[in-house]
């Protein structure tokens, strides 16, 4: 057995804390180590060549690379050994950066630890076995969850590539938050004007099937072969028959009495409704929470909506429907929630009608919004407008991150006030203006020149909005009070409240801030840890529309690749059963979450289905006779590693 060991200095990332030459010398003395070398960057071309050359010239059987986390470069080095004809599973990685040099400062002890970890890997490496990666066929279809701008963009890209896409949104219409915006910074395009054509394109595209008013129930399977159960909620309107004429909503007994969530509850609608004028699909939906018929079983003495509908589209007998979709890949684009400032009493939100959120502002200035675009607060036009930035963002006790869009949407909104009311006084309380994007700084300068007063304060400085006759007084430390008739809070973007539930269904992870976690923050920003599932848009972190669209196009490319190839490789790490040792006790059977183990009544022993097996090893840990062996994590391999690390 010949083992080659390659230790990376990672510039000074590792070598500043670990004495790499000493590590290499000590490792040389271990049994079976044929070659032990180091390089400034093992992952670089010359570093990789070092390994390749040794495999060729020294006829190595196993390779150990001690560098960064295997989660970063294991695929890279597996590729390197594979090029020289070595089985990729004969590579072992040791994490001496994330687990050693970056977390310890005592050089001597860090060096000692690195030596022990590598010794463990060398001991384990002798017992590594070549494994075959299974290849599975890929169903040439994709699923996009969430139909905001991210989901629409991703679905269109995959559809244009020639594959079928299911686009699922839980709302009655696609469009997401962008549909609620009035204009968009920094170019001031009308949001609906750039979004609506894309929504229509998505609906019309022959490769896209829309499943609106639908939720993900369950996700099973693996890359290439996901089985997704989608719950279609009943609209109580036949979408084939409805022509969107709106006679039903006119007739509804509750017309003008149901809060309209699309307008941030600033207007009222009927119990049968269409969320907004450009909705796609353009069909009505009955709100089960409010409709008298659905709640009480009757509505006055006749069903006015049914009477009004000339298409006979209303059907109170509609039931929830479960649909099964088979897809090869999944893109998650579920977006964000708006921060609710009611918990932050200092802003006086909800107590004073003069205090609104950024999203409420978007609706109020919108020509199709609750006031048809007139900025009326308490029935009159505002003369003194105050914007307060960073509400719910950059808060060390709450959401610590910067929401990335509020600085710019505040500048945009200040500009819109100036545009509509040239004589108004406008002030912005800010801490740092983050105008990082293309055209952002220019836009900010333009707004400042439009007689908008930017007042700087520290994040922790006291600020208070107190009620006053006909408006409010904004008191901020270090600045004169402002008597304002409108205060707009630049509320941040927060994770969807059901992110955890969704992540569990998809078997993906959340980051510390509650958004969905990418596989690598820099190199795999669109992937998740589950092969075949990708993320795009604000579900991953707050971002503006240009970044959202760019990310969505990228995720679409990632999701379409396996569909184009028609096959994908799945994990080779599965369980195997030694027929001679299996006693047929069936203990493992109940432990398997995937029903991969089945009792064969003929042979009276267990059989394994290695397509279903996901390789967790729970069965092997329980097998009393040791008949179950986990590939790549066999008892021998793990025990050798323990012994190698602990050897004196």
């Amino acid at each position, binding site marked *: 057995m010949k083992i080659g060991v390659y230790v990376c200095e990672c510039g000074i990332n590792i070598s500043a804390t670990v004495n790499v030459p000493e590590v290499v010398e000590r490792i040389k003395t271990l049994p079976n180590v044929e070659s032990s070398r180091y390089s400034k960057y093992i992952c670089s071309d010359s570093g990789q060549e070092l390994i390749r050359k040794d495999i060729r010239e020294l006829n190595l059987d196993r390779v150990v690379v001690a560098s960064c*986390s*295997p*989660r970063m470069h294991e695929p890279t080095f597996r590729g390197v050994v594979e090029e020289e004809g070595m089985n990729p599973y004969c590579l072992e990685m040791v*994490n001496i*950066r*994330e*687990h*050693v040099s*970056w*977390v*310890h*400062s*005592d050089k001597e*002890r*860090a060096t*000692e*630890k690195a030596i*022990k*970890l590598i010794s*463990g890997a060398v001991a384990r490496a002798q017992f590594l076995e070549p494994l075959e990666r299974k290849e599975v066929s890929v169903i040439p279809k994709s699923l996009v969850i969430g139909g905001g701008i991210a989901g629409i963009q991703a679905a269109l890209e995959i559809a244009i590539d020639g594959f079928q896409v299911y686009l699922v949104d839980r709302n009655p219409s696609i469009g997401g938050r962008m549909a609620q915006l009035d204009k968009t910074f920094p170019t001031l395009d009308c949001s609906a004007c750039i979004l609506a054509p894309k929504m229509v394109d998505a609906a019309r595209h022959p490769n896209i099937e829309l499943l609106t008013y639908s939720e993900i129930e369950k996700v099973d399977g693996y890359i290439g072969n996901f089985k997704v159960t989608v719950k279609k909620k009943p609209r109580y309107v036949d979408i084939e028959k409805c022509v969107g004429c709106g006679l039903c909503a006119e007739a509804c007994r509750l017309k003008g009495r149901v809060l309209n969530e699309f307008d941030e509850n600033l207007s009222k609608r009927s119990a049968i409704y269409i969320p907004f004028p450009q909705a796609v699909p353009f069909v009505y939906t009955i709100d089960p929470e409010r409709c008298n018929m659905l709640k009480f079983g009757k509505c006055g003495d006749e069903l006015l909506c049914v009477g009004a509908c000339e298409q006979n589209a209303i059907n109170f007998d509609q039931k929830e429907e479960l649909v099964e979709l088979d897809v090869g890949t999944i893109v998650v684009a579920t977006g964000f929630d708006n921060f609710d400032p009611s918990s932050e009493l200092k802003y006086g939100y909800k107590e004073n009608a003069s205090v609104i959120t950024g999203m409420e502002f978007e609706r109020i200035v919108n020509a199709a919004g609750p006031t048809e675009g007139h900025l009326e607060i308490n029935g009159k036009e505002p003369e003194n407008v105050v914007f307060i930035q960073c509400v719910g963002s950059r808060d060390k006790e709450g959401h610590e991150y910067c929401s990335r869009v509020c600085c710019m949407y505040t500048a945009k909104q200040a500009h819109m006030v100036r545009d509509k009311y040239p004589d108004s006084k406008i002030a912005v309380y800010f801490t740092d203006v983050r105008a990082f994007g293309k055209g952002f700084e220019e836009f900010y300068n333009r707004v400042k020149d439009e007689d908008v007063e930017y007042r700087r304060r520290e994040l922790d400085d006291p600020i208070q909005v107190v009620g006053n006759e006909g408006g409010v007084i904004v008191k901020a430390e270090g600045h004169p009070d402002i008597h304002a008739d409108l205060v707009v809070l630049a509320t941040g973007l927060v994770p969807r409240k059901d992110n955890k539930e969704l992540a*569990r269904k998809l*078997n993906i*992870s*959340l*980051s*510390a*801030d509650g958004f969905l*976690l990418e596989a690598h*923050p820099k190199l795999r920003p669109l992937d998740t*840890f589950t092969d075949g599932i990708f993320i795009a848009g604000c579900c991953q972190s707050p971002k503006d529309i240009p970044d959202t669209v760019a990310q969505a196009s990228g995720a679409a490319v990632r999701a379409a690749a396996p569909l184009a190839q028609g096959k994908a490789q799945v994990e080779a*790490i599965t369980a195997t059963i030694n027929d001679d040792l299996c006693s047929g006790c069936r203990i493992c059977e109940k*432990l398997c*979450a*995937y029903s991969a183990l089945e009792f064969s009544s003929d042979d009276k022993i267990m059989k394994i289905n290695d397509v279903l097996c*996901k*390789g*967790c*090893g*729970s069965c*092997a*840990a*329980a097998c009393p006779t040791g008949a179950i062996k*986990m590939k790549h*994590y066999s*008892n021998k391999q*793990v*025990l050798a*590693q*323990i*012994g190698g*690390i*602990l*050897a*004196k």
Partner: protein
Amino acid sequence: MTATETKTEMEEFEPNIIGFLCNWCSYAGADLAGTSRIQYPPNIKIIKVMCSGRVNPMYVVNALQQGADGVLIGGCHPGDCHYQHGNLLARRRMAILKNLLEFIGIDSRRVRMTWVSAAEGRKFAEVIKEVTEEIKKIGPMKDIQRVNEW
């Protein structure tokens, strides 16, 4: 041996701790501690397994036999296991193992199970600090011995 001598000996004792971490949550949490440069004692040596459910109690016993003074098993939080419930199986196994360890005269605090998610770099570092402190207090692992008390 005088009291002060015992004290210095205890102060110098640097325990060997083996950590079995699942690939999906705890190992990623340890990586995050690294990328966030959160410092913790180097006593822990990590072995990656696909799921905490892979940790055969035999591995823990073996580690103690080979000279580990403590063993940590890290998995995803309940409900978050990448394989649905491997972490719950691990928890049950470790609870049983701890009883056995007490029975054969090994302080069961040497073995600890913890949940660390991929987002909990800080928690990971805290747990390692705690575990290292605790094992330091318990002292080095001695040969297995038990005095019967009836």
